[in-house]
Every structure is written in C-alpha cells, then in structure tokens.
C-alpha cells in the first residue's frame, strides 16, 4: 500500500468542555441534553449587551500544576489537558521515544484555535498600562501566538515529525484534524495528536461579536439561548474548551494492538468567496465541500447515518447548511440523524471542530446520536431529520458513517467523514 492511501483511524479522544472536564463527562452531558451556558458574573461583563457564555465545567487551575499553567494561555491549557487525556486513552504511557511505542520523528501535532491567545494579549496590555513595562510577562509572546497550543502539545508528547496550526476561524479545529489525516496519508507521520481549542470569554471578543449581531442576547434564559434550527434563534453563544483526537495509521494501531474507535475517511474543503463574515445564503460553498468529501472518500450516502452539524444558532447559517446538505445528499438526507451539539456546548470557535469530532467519533462508536436541545419550534426552512430533545439510537448492524461540519468567518468550509469499524 502506497503512503498516499493509508487508512487512518482514531485511537484516542480527550476533551475539556462546558459539559465536563473530560470526554466521558462531556459525552454523558450531551446524551443527557444538558446546557453548559451560564450568566457571566462580574463587573467587567456588566455593560455588555451579551452577558452569557459557556465556560469550561472544570477550570484548568484545578488540573494543571501552577508553574505550567502560568506559562500557558488558557487556550493552550485546555489543549494540553485534552491532549493528555487523548494520549493516555490511546494507550500511550509516556512521551514518544520513552516507551518504545512510537518514534518521535513519526509523531506529529496539529492543534488549532480561531483567535489564539487573545486573553493573554488583552490581559498583558492591562498590565502594561496599569503596572508598567517591567511587569509584562516574559511568557507573553509564546502564550499569545496562535501556534502556542500546538507547540505545547507537541512538547508534551515529544512530536518531531511536524507541529502545525491551520487557522480558519471557526473551521480551524476541523481543518487541523484534516491536516493531520493528510500527514499520515502522505507518509510524514504514523501518529498525530490533532484537535481544536479556544478560550475567548473576555469582554472585548464578546463586545466585538455582539456588535457583528452574531450572538444571542437572550441574557435572561442562558440555558435556552443556544437554539439551532428553532424559529426563535438569535445568534450563537460563546463557549470555551478543547477537543483532541489521536489519529494513527491503521497499520501502526494494529501493530500495538490499540483500541480503534473508528476510521477517518477524509475531508472535503471549499471556500465561499462570498463575504468576509456572512454565510453564503444558498449554501453553495458548503455543498461544494460536502460534494468534495463524497468524491474524495468514496463515501456512499446510503451509509451515512449521522451529521454533527456546524449549526451555531444563527438565523442564516443554520438554514444555509441544511440547504447544502439537501442539495448534495438529496433523499438520502431523510435517513440521516442531524445533531446540533452547540445547543448544549455553545460555540467553541476554533475548538468546535475538536469537540464535535470527539462527539462524532463517540456517536459512531456507541451508535447513538446526541440531541439538539431547545428546539421547540422548528424553522420551516429546516428540511432535515433533526435529533430533537433526546438522544437517538443509530442503526446497530453493519458499517455506519458520519460527518462533522465546521465553517469559519472568511468563508472556510471543512467537512470530515468517519466510518465505524
């Protein structure tokens, strides 16, 4: 088998999210239909038009030693926590090269975020203004650089095949996973730690997103604010956290007897080239990405049983995505269970592709699709089978496949496909 068509599998998962401090508690929260959205307390949020968000359930200060945490931006803290879980979950007991299970030069890391160390940048500017030049942390640059989470995860596991950070706003996490698949397919690596992270719950990003009219202002009902596909949806709710997977060539996974969650079939990519922030209303670009995915992977739509949709709860975006799926999949969309897990986690921006890949992998592995909560009054333009209210069992027999969509400001469209093993 040539290096360009190697089979890639998922052997480990990790997450820290608004629903839980690890992937198991996150998954449990999703299946139970819990909301992670809360009021934003504190003086600095008081004047904002949006005073709700979905913070991580377990603060990193409870998990990471202080000397490490103080050198990492919050987005890198999340990434390291999720990567440690995924690494151990895949059966690795030490950094590469120490336990003989993978060579450092065959291991990569690709972790992305949408906006990097924005809280470090803003907080250190406050330090500069309030306390002076001398007090600005010497760790500021490595903390704010967008490749910081990827570099720190690479240091954790001793990745030497390559450490990368694709940036495409809210598609970043999914693009990272797609990039990692290609690293393995092309023969550059046998194992890659991949995912997305984001930590942007700060007054400035919230003010900026709110002024774009992109966010829900349902401050009185935080748990009902993120409501994809519902007629009353009025924008996304900002979430934070990270989701990370361990991708591995099937041969490498088999050689060490690793547990395999599912196969990664590949990715479909496109760009809208329509507007810097508005979704293209007919879903043209999204449809192109999904069509590319089918063409690239040979995925038979008849096998496709589940979509973890991008569905951020914005009026235009949710509709355009469903139109695109209908356009490409036709009647096959009728037998596909569509879930919008952002109804529970909020929108993790660059972290979304990470945690939603973890959710998609677990949906295939356990054969159950998580619910879309707060869908009380379905928008009549949403012509798809949305998993409403409660989790739904997926077919128990035969191979099943699922896709995870992520789209970003800038018109970036990424869709990833997975198949049960």
């Amino acid at each position, binding site marked *: 088998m040539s290096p360009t068509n190697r089979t890639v599998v998922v052997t480990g998962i990790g997450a820290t999210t608004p629903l839980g401090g690890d992937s198991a508690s996150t998954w449990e929260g999703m299946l139970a239909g819990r909301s992670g959205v809360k009021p934003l307390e504190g003086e600095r949020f008081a004047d904002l038009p949006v005073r709700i968000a979905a913070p991580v359930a377990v603060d990193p200060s409870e998990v990471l030693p202080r*000397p490490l945490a103080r050198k990492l931006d919050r987005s890198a803290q999340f990434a390291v926590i999720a990567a440690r879980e995924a690494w151990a979950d895949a059966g690795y007991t030490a950094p590469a090269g120490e336990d003989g299970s993978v060579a450092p030069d065959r291991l990569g890391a690709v972790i992305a975020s949408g906006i990097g160390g924005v809280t470090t940048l803003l907080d250190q500017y406050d330090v500069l203004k309030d306390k002076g030049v001398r007090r600005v942390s*010497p*760790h500021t640059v490595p903390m704010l650089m967008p490749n910081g989470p990827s570099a720190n995860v690479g240091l954790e596991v001793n990745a030497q095949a390559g450490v990368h950070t694709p940036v495409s706003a809210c598609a970043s996490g999914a693009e990272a996973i797609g990039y990692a698949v290609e690293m393995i397919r092309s023969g550059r690596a046998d194992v890659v730690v991949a995912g997305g992270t984001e930590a942007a719950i700060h007054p400035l990003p919230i003010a900026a997103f709110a002024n774009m009219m992109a966010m829900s202002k349902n401050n009185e009902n935080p748990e009902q604010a993120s409501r994809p596909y519902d007629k009353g949806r009025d924008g996304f709710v900002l979430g934070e956290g990270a989701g990370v997977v361990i991708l591995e060539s099937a041969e490498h996974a088999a050689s060490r007897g690793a547990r395999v969650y599912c196969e990664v079939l590949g990715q479909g990519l496109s760009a809208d080239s329509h507007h810097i922030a508005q979704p293209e209303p007919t879903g043209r670009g999204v449809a192109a990405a999904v069509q590319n995915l089918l063409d690239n992977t040979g995925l038979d739509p008849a096998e496709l049983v589940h979509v973890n949709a991008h569905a951020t709860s914005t009026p235009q975006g949710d509709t355009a995505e469903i139109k695109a799926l209908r356009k490409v999949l036709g009647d096959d969309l009728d037998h596909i269970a569509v879930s919008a897990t952002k109804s529970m986690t909020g929108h993790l921006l660059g972290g979304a592709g990470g945690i939603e890949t973890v959710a998609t992998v677990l949906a295939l592995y356990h054969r159950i699709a998580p619910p879309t909560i707060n869908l009380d009054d379905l928008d009549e333009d949403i012509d798809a089978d949305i998993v409403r209210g409660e989790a739904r069992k997926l077919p128990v027999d035969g191979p099943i496949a699922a896709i995870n969509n992520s789209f970003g400001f800038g018109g970036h469209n990424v869709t990833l496909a997975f198949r049960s093993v």
Partner: protein
Amino acid sequence: MAATQEEIVEGLAEIVNEIAGIPVEDVEIDKSFTDDLDVDSLSMVEVVVAAEERFDVKIPDEDVKNLKTVGDAADYILKHQG
C-alpha cells in the same frame, strides 16, 4: 531596613517556588537556577522582577546573566538593595 542574606535566600526560595514549583527547602545558595531549579531564561526574568519588587533593588538586564546561582542573586541583592 535592609534584608539579611538569610532573609534574601528565603525570599528567593518563595519566588522560585511560586514560579517554578520547586519546594522552598530545595532552593539553596549553591543551586543553579537553570540546571537545578527548572528556571529557564524566560522564567528567570520573572524571578528577577519579583526580586526587584520584594527587595527594592534594580537588577539591569546586563547583570542578570551573571546570576547563575541562588547565592549569586542573594549577594547581588545584598549589595545593591535600597
């Protein structure tokens, strides 16, 4: 009142503990910041700034490279404290 050498070493130990997580009792005068105490060049800047505030002393960047051990730093502070 100026700090004694013993007080300075105690203070440095607390700073190194805060920044690098090394137990205070392990921060002794013959220990090297980089080789023994897990203080890299970036964290050394934090140690210096914290020491400047605590002991009312200025440690110019060009002098920092000479402060290899806890003893070097304690001697410098003892000599230059305000």
